[in-house]
């Protein structure tokens, strides 16, 4: 493993977007930063700027009103990036899934790597989800590399 691949796993910067939920998931996400869980041990930093982020953590039920904002934030994150959907609302729309304005899950707007189920999920589960997302991101980068090598060989 090269030094950049290793660093990617060691330093995931997280940007957090709430699509409009009850804030319970947001409180659990922010609880990860407190001395009890201290995600900075793993190099995870909560940044406010999508341009500096690696992982997008989405919570809440995405709806027709804010899907444009969510897409915009996703597009601003430089590659390689990963998306973690936290909570039942982000996964399926949750308790709001029958509402006329609610899209049934974040996956209808942006590609999701990891779903963290629960209403609301424990901070341990959220940290686990981010770690899993990093593994997937790494795999995807490797596949991309192999593909480009293969296409070069074909040329």
């Amino acid at each position: 493993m090269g030094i950049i691949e290793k660093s990617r796993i060691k330093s995931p910067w997280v940007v957090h977007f709430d699509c409009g939920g009850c804030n319970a998931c947001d409180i659990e996400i922010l609880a990860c930063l407190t001395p009890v869980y201290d995600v900075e041990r793993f190099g995870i930093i909560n940044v406010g700027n999508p341009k500096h982020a690696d992982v997008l953590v989405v919570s809440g039920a995405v709806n027709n009103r804010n899907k444009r904002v969510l897409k915009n934030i996703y597009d601003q994150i430089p590659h390689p990036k990963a998306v973690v959907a936290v909570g039942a609302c982000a996964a399926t729309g949750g308790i709001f899934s029958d509402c006329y304005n609610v899209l049934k899950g974040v996956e209808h707007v942006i590609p999701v790597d990891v779903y963290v189920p629960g209403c609301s999920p424990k901070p341990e589960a959220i940290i686990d989800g981010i770690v899993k997302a990093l593994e997937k991101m790494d795999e995807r980068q490797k596949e991309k590399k192999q593909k480009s090598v293969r296409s070069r060989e074909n040329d």
Partner: protein
Amino acid sequence: MLSALLTIIVTIIVVPAIGGLLVGADRIITARMQGRIGPPLIQPFYDLFKLLGKENIVVNRVQMFYVLSNLALMITSVVLFVLKQDLLMIIFIMAFGSMALILGGLSVQSPYSRIGSHRELLQMMAYEPILVFMVVGIYLRTKSFNVQSVLNLKEPLLGYMPLIFIAILLILTIKLRKSPFDFSTSHHGHQELVKGLLTEYAGPQLALIELAHWYELVLVLGFIVLFWATNIYIGIAIALGSMILEIIIDNITARMTWKWMIGVVWTIGIGLCLINIAFLYK
């Protein structure tokens, strides 16, 4: 000639390593003060290499030029310092480096970046006079602007310039972007104006800015070492002590406004410098 070339190469490689380790230690000490465990010591290097490996999103054509000139000027000023050259020159090249970053921040449309750049300008207005006063003090003591003349002194400068030393500690807080003066941009996980000056820099650009900041950090601590240059180990101990003092101040103070900063630095800081220079002036 060859030894000077060797010194330059060693400086360019060793200085960011020291700077990165200092930043890593800073993050661990800060975490311990907040009752957390904190990241590993080499976390800043992980961050740097990760950012270098990311996609380079460029907002406009000139941005990368400003980032590279910031890095190049910072490296130049550190190299001049290690080669024991003119202190005035070093300070002005450092100011040019910071200026490049500000121009890059102003070259984009983002209001966060623009407000951050304006605040960084105000910070420069606050700390540049103190740095120049330090050089004036050194000149009055040694009759020379060269770093070499400070090293030739028989007695440490601190005994003659204690008040200027306090003023330098004040501006060290600004230079290290620590609370209460972290309003142009912030470090660690803090957010101010999203990320202020650095909002529109992403990926490799942010990595190069971070690298330049490590050079700057070592240079500013080098200025502090000058205050006890007769025994370099005591000087380094004083520099590390002031770094720890800055970390403590960072953790016990809240962020203030730029008006407060200008008020404090221009009255207390410049006041201390003027009193000190009046005593040095014979």
